[in-house]
C-alpha cells in the first residue's frame, strides 16, 4: 500500500493513513516535543517522522501551547520535521458538558467561562440528579439553548487565533438512543451554523482553513435506521473533513463494533476524508473501512473507566508491548521479561538505549514508557504506509500475531 499525500488549505500536509496523537497535559506536550527533537531521522530509526499531527482539546490548550512553538527551530536544520510543521487540531470538545469526568467538565467550563458564564452552575445542578433519564433531558433542555451561534463563533475564533490547521465546528454528542432524533437535529443545526459563519464573518480571516464537522458518539446508539440522518447532519455546512470521536467503545461487543464500522463505511459515499478520534489500536481497523486519519492518546486508554473500590491506579503506568499490541502493567512486564534478563521486548530508540527494565529508574518510568509508545507508534505507522500487500492483509497478519486477534474479525464486515 502506498501512502497518499493530502494537502490542507493551510499548506500543511499528511500522508494517509496517518496517525495523530493527543497531547492532554503539559508533560505529554513536553515529551512529544522532546522526542521529536531528541530522535531525528537516521539510517536505523525514523524518530517521530511518521506522526503528522497533534490534537489538543480546547480545555487543555493553555497548558500545552507553550510547547507548540510557532517559530521554526533553526538548530535542527532545514530537513527537520519540527512540532510546528505538523498539523495542529484544537478540538472544542463540546461533548464535555454532556459526558465525561467531573474534572474534564470543570476544565471545559473554565475555557468557556467568558462565553457561557452560567454553564458551570447548570452542570452542578444537573450532576446531582440521580435518574439518568431526567439527567439527559435536563442537559438537553438547559444546555442546548446555550450552545448558540455565539459559542460556535467563539470556538472557531479561538481555533483560528491559535493557529489550528483544521477548524472543528463544535456540536453536541449522540449519547442517548431515546433522544437521538433531537441530538441529531441539534448537531445538524450547529454544523450548518458553523459552515455559514465560516463563509460569512470568517471571510475576514486571511488564511483559509479546512472545516471539520465532528460527531462525538457512543457506538451503542448507532442503529442503521439513523445512519442517513446522522450523515445528513454531518455534512451540513459543507465541511472539508468529517470527524468521529468514539466514546466508550466496547470492543468485546462484536455486534456494536461492527455496526460502528458499517456506519463509518457508509460515510465513505460522501467522498469527504474521515478522521477517527480517540482510538487506540482499534483505529487501525478503521483504516480498512474508510478513515484516513486516526488520533490516539499517548500511552493511555482513550476511555474513562471507574476503578472499583476507589483504589488509586499504580504510579507506574502501562508499557505498550509492540508485538502483543497490548498494555502491560509494570509488574506484569517485570514478570514477563524476567526470563530474558529483563530485556525490553522492543527495539525502538529508547528501549535500545536502556536495554533492560532494571536500568530505568522508577521516577523516569512514566516518561520512558510514553516516549517508547510514541516511537513504536511511529514504527507501526511506517509499516502500514510501506507495506507491499493490501493494508487489510498486513493488518490481519499483525493482529494475528498479537493478543488483539479479535480485531481480525472486524477487518471484513460480511
Amino acid at each position: 500500500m502506498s501512502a497518499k499525500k493530502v494537502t490542507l488549505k493551510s499548506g500543511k500536509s499528511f500522508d494517509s493513513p496517518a496517525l495523530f496523537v493527543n497531547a492532554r497535559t503539559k508533560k505529554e506536550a513536553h515529551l512529544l516535543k522532546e522526542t521529536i527533537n531528541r530522535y531525528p531521522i537516521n539510517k536505523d530509526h525514523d524518530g517521530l517522522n511518521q506522526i503528522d499531527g497533534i490534537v489538543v482539546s480546547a480545555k487543555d490548550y493553555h497548558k500545552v501551547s507553550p510547547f507548540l512553538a510557532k517559530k521554526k527551530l533553526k538548530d535542527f536544520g532545514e530537513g527537520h520535521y519540527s512540532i510546528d510543521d505538523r498539523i495542529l487540531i484544537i478540538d472544542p470538545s463540546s461533548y464535555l458538558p454532556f459526558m465525561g469526568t467531573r474534572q474534564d467538565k470543570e476544565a471545559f467550563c473554565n475555557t468557556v467561562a467568558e462565553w457561557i458564564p452560567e454553564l458551570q452552575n447548570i452542570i452542578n445542578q444537573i450532576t446531582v440528579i440521580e435518574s439518568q433519564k431526567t439527567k439527559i433531558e435536563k442537559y438537553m433542555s438547559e444546555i442546548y439553548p446555550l450552545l448558540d451561534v455565539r459559542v460556535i463563533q467563539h470556538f472557531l475564533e479561538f481555533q483560528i487565533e491559535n493557529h489550528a490547521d483544521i477548524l472543528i465546528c463544535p456540536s453536541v454528542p449522540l449519547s442517548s438512543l431515546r433522544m437521538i432524533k433531537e441530538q441529531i437535529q441539534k448537531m445538524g443545526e450547529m454544523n450548518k451554523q458553523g459552515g455559514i459563519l465560516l463563509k460569512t464573518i470568517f471571510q475576514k480571516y486571511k488564511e483559509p482553513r479546512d472545516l471539520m464537522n465532528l460527531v462525538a458518539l457512543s457506538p451503542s446508539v448507532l442503529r442503521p435506521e439513523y445512519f442517513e440522518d446522522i450523515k445528513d447532519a454531518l455534512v451540513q455546512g459543507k465541511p472539508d473533513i468529517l470527524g468521529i470521536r468514539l466514546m466508550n467503545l466496547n470492543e468485546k461487543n462484536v455486534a456494536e463494533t461492527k455496526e460502528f464500522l458499517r456506519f463509518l463505511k457508509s460515510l465513505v459515499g460522501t467522498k469527504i476524508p474521515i478522521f477517527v478520534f480517540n482510538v487506540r489500536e482499534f483505529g487501525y481497523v478503521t483504516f480498512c473501512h474508510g478513515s484516513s486519519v486516526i488520533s490516539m492518546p499517548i500511552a493511555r486508554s482513550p476511555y474513562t473507566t471507574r476503578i472499583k473500590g476507589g483504589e488509586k491506579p499504580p504510579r507506574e503506568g502501562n508499557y505498550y508491548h509492540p508485538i502483543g499490541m497490548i498494555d502491560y502493567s509494570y509488574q506484569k512486564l517485570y514478570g514477563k521479561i524476567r526470563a530474558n534478563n529483563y530485556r525490553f521486548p522492543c527495539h525502538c530508540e529508547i528501549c535500545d538505549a536502556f536495554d533492560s527494565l532494571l536500568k530505568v529508574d522508577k521516577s523516569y518510568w512514566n516518561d520512558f514508557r510514553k516516549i517508547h509508545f510514541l516511537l513504536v507508534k511511529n514504527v507501526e505507522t511506517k509499516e502500514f504506509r510501506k507495506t507491499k500487500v493490501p493494508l487489510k492483509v498486513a493488518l490481519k497478519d499483525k493482529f494475528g500475531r498479537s493478543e488483539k486477534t479479535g480485531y481480525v474479525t472486524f477487518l471484513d464486515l460480511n
Partner: protein
Amino acid sequence: MLEIQVPEVLQKSEYLKLPPSERELYVREILRQTVRKNEHGVTIGLLAKRLPFDSRTIEKHLSILTFTNEIYAVKIGNTQLFLPNSIPLHPAKKQSFETENREYIAYVLQNRLGEFVFIQEKKKTEFTEEVGGGILIPLADFKGFVKFLDSFKKDINKFKISG
C-alpha cells in the same frame, strides 16, 4: 415574479445573537454573496423577501458595497438594480501591491457599463483582512489616469525638495 438565488443563511433569531460588529460583517457578506450569485441583478424588495433582514438594513449595506465598488447600481425607471462588480475578465488580469498592513489589488473587469480597471484596498492585521475602499477607472481612460498619477508624483517630489 423574479426568483433570486440566496446562499445558506442563519435564522433571524440566531443571527441577532451575534455581537453587533460581527452581525454587520455577516449581513454584508450575505448580501455580497447574494448579489454575486445573481448576475442579472437584485432589488432591495427581492432581497427583503428572501433574506431575514429588513429593507433598511439591506439598503444600508448595499450602499456600503456600492461605495466600495464591489457592486454597482443601475436605475431602471423607479427600480434600482444592484449588480456584481467583481468579475475579473481574466485571472491573469489581477495584480496586487502590498504595503505593511494594506494590499491594493488591481483587476480588469467588465460590467454592463463597460470595461474597467478596478483597484481595491484591503486592510490587513495579523489574522484578518477587510475590504477598504475601491475605485473604478474606465479601461479606455486608464492610460490618462496613470499619466495623471505620474504628474502628481512629480509635483509631490518638487514639493519635498522645495519644502
